C-alpha cells in the first residue's frame, strides 16, 4: 500500500512566446489537502490541465501515483477525480444520467453504481434534482454536479480547479466540508484557488504560484511561523498624527505587541500575538494612551500578508 502521489517534473508550458508555467518541480505525497494558491493568471489552471492531459507540456512530465500522465493518460487518470474549468454537462442529460455515463466509462461495477450515484448526489446536496435536466440548472448547481462527477468513483487523488466557482457562500462552505470529508478518508487533494481563506480553511499545505513560477511549497504551519515570526499584523488608524517617538514606544510595550512601526503619520502597524481575547485589552489600552485611535483592523495572517505582497508586486 503506497501513499497517493501527484508529481510534476520540469513542467513548462509556453503559449507562443509567453511562458504560462516555468519549470514546475512539485511532489505531493500522502493523504492530505494541498492548496494551489495564486492570483488570477498565475498558471494554476494551466498546471492542472497538464496534470490531467488536457493540454500538453512544452517540457517536463506529470505523474499520478507514479504513472506518467503524458505517456499513459488512461491508466494515470483511472485513479484521479478531476474538476477543471467548470465544464458544462450535456444539457439534455439529468445528473443521474451524466453520472451514470461517467461511472460506465470509468468501469464502476454496475451493482455499486446506483448506490454510489445517490451517495455523491446527496453529498453535494443535489439529491432532489437527480432526475431533472441539467440544461436549466444554475451555475452553482452545475458546479455541484461537476464535483459529484469528480468523486463518483471515490478516487485516491482528487484534482480540483477553483471548486467554489459559481457557488454562493453556503455552497462554498459545503465544498469545504466535502474536502474535509475526503481528507478524513485518506485521499490526496490538490485544489487550486485564488482565495486565501479557502486554502487556509481546509488545506494542510500550500503551494504558492505567481507568474508561472512556484514561490514555495510548505505546510501552512511552517509558512506561518517562517514568515514574520508567525504573528498577525493589526493596523491602527489615528485621528491625528502621532505626537512623539515615546508614544510609539509606549504602544510597543503593550502586552502582546511584538513590534510596532509607523506606516504613515496617522497609521501604525503592530505585530500582535495576543489572540482574540488580548485584542479587546489591546483596544482598551490604546484608547487609554489618548493618541486618537479611530480604528483597529482585523488581524492579517502572515500568509495573507505574503500573498497580498505577491499580488501587489505582480500588479
Amino acid at each position, binding site marked *: 500500500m503506497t501513499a497517493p502521489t501527484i508529481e510534476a517534473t520540469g513542467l513548462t508550458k509556453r503559449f507562443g512566446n509567453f511562458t504560462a508555467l516555468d519549470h514546475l518541480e512539485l511532489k505531493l505525497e500522502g493523504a492530505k489537502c494541498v492548496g494551489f494558491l495564486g492570483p488570477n493568471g498565475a498558471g494554476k489552471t494551466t498546471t492542472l490541465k497538464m496534470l490531467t492531459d*488536457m493540454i500538453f507540456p512544452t517540457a517536463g512530465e506529470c505523474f499520478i501515483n507514479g504513472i506518467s500522465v503524458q505517456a499513459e493518460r488512461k491508466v494515470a487518470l483511472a485513479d484521479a477525480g478531476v474538476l477543471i474549468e467548470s465544464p458544462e454537462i*450535456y444539457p439534455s442529460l439529468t445528473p443521474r444520467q451524466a453520472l451514470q455515463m461517467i461511472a460506465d*466509462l*470509468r468501469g464502476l461495477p454496475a451493482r455499486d453504481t446506483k448506490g454510489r450515484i445517490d451517495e455523491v448526489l446527496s453529498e453535494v446536496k443535489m439529491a432532489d434534482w437527480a432526475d431533472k435536466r441539467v440544461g436549466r440548472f444554475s451555475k452553482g448547481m452545475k458546479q455541484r454536479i461537476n464535483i459529484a*462527477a469528480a468523486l463518483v468513483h471515490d478516487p485516491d487523488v482528487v484534482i480540483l480547479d477553483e471548486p467554489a466557482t459559481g457557488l454562493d457562500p453556503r455552497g462554498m462552505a459545503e465544498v469545504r466540508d466535502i474536502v474535509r470529508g475526503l481528507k478524513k478518508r*485518506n485521499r490526496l487533494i490538490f485544489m487550486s484557488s485564488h482565495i486565501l481563506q479557502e486554502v487556509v480553511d481546509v488545506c494542510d499545505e500550500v503551494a504558492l504560484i505567481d507568474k508561472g513560477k512556484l514561490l514555495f511549497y510548505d505546510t501552512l504551519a511552517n509558512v506561518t511561523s517562517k514568515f514574520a515570526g508567525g504573528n498577525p499584523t493589526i493596523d491602527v488608524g489615528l485621528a491625528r498624527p502621532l505626537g512623539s517617538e515615546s508614544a510609539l514606544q509606549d504602544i510597543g510595550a503593550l502586552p502582546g505587541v511584538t513590534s510596532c512601526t509607523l506606516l504613515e503619520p496617522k497609521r501604525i502597524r503592530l505585530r500582535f500575538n495576543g489572540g482574540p481575547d488580548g485584542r479587546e485589552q489591546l483596544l482598551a489600552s490604546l484608547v487609554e494612551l489618548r493618541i486618537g485611535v479611530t480604528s483597529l483592523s482585523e488581524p492579517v495572517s502572515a500568509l495573507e500578508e505574503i500573498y497580498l505582497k505577491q499580488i501587489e508586486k505582480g500588479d
Partner: protein
Amino acid sequence: MAAHEASAVAKLPTAPRTRLQVPGSVNQVLKLTRAQFGEYLSSRRFVILVGIVIAIGGILTAVVAYFRSSLVSSSSLAFYGSLWGGAAGFVIVLAAVFFGGDAIAGEFQNKTGYFLMGLPIRRSVVYVGKYIAALLASLCVLFLFLVILLANGAYYYGGNALPWQLLPSVLLAVVYLFAVLGTTFLFSSLFKTSAYGFVLTAILFLFGFTLLQDLVQGLVKMEPWMVISYASSAIGEVFAPTVNWGLGGTIVSTRIPTGPGRFDTVTSYTSGVAEGLAIMLAYFLITGVVGLLLFEKEEFA
C-alpha cells in the same frame, strides 16, 4: 494511547485501494455512443431536423398527389429513382451538417469536452463515440424520409411494387452518410467555435462541393472524381434504365444554343456505381484517419 490511535486509523479505508478496472476502449466507445445518442435524440436540433424531413416529405407527397395522373403512366422504378435518388443525398447532407458540423467544435465552445477529458479514456474514444452516435441519429432521420417515400409508393403502386434497385441505392446512401459525416467531423475538429464548424460544413456541402464539381466538369472538362458530392450521383444511378455499375463515369453532353446557329457543349458526368462507392469509402477512410490524428493532438486550452 498510541495503540488506540493506530486502531482508529486502521478503520479508515487506506489509499490507494484496489484500482478500478477501466473498460477497454471499444467498450468505452459503445458506452459513450449510447450516452451521446440519447443526448442527440433528446436534443432540440433532432426535433428540428425531423420537422424539416417531415416538411420535405410532406411537400413531395403533395406534389406527387397533384401530378398523380401522370404517375399512372410511369413505373415505381421511376418514382423511387426520382424521389429517393434525387433527394436522399440532400437529406444526408442536412443530417450530417446538423449532427457533425459542430460535433467536435461544440465540445470546445460549450465546454462539455472538459467533462469528458478528465476521464481515463483515449481522445480517439471521444471522437469515435460521437461519430457513431451522430451516424445513428442521422440514420434515424434518413429512414424517416425513406418511410415517407415508401408510404407514398405503397399508396400508388401497391405494397409489393418495390423495385429491387431500392436496396442497393439505400445501401449506397448509408455509405455516403458515413463519408459525409466523416468529412463534417474532420472540419468540425478544425474549429473551437460551433458556428464556424456549422457554417463551414453547411457552405461546403450545400454549395461548395457542387460548385467545385461544376467547375471541374464544365470548365476543365474532367471527371470530378475527387469531389465527394459527385459520388452521390451513384445513389440515383442505380435506378437508370441501363445502369453503369463500373468504375468510370458516364459523360453527358448537352448542346445549348449560344446564338443564331451557334452551339456550346456542356459536359457533365454521372459516377458509376462502383466508382461512387470507391469515392465514398476513400472520403470516409481519409477524413477518419486525419480527423482522429488531429483530435489526438488537440488541446483543451
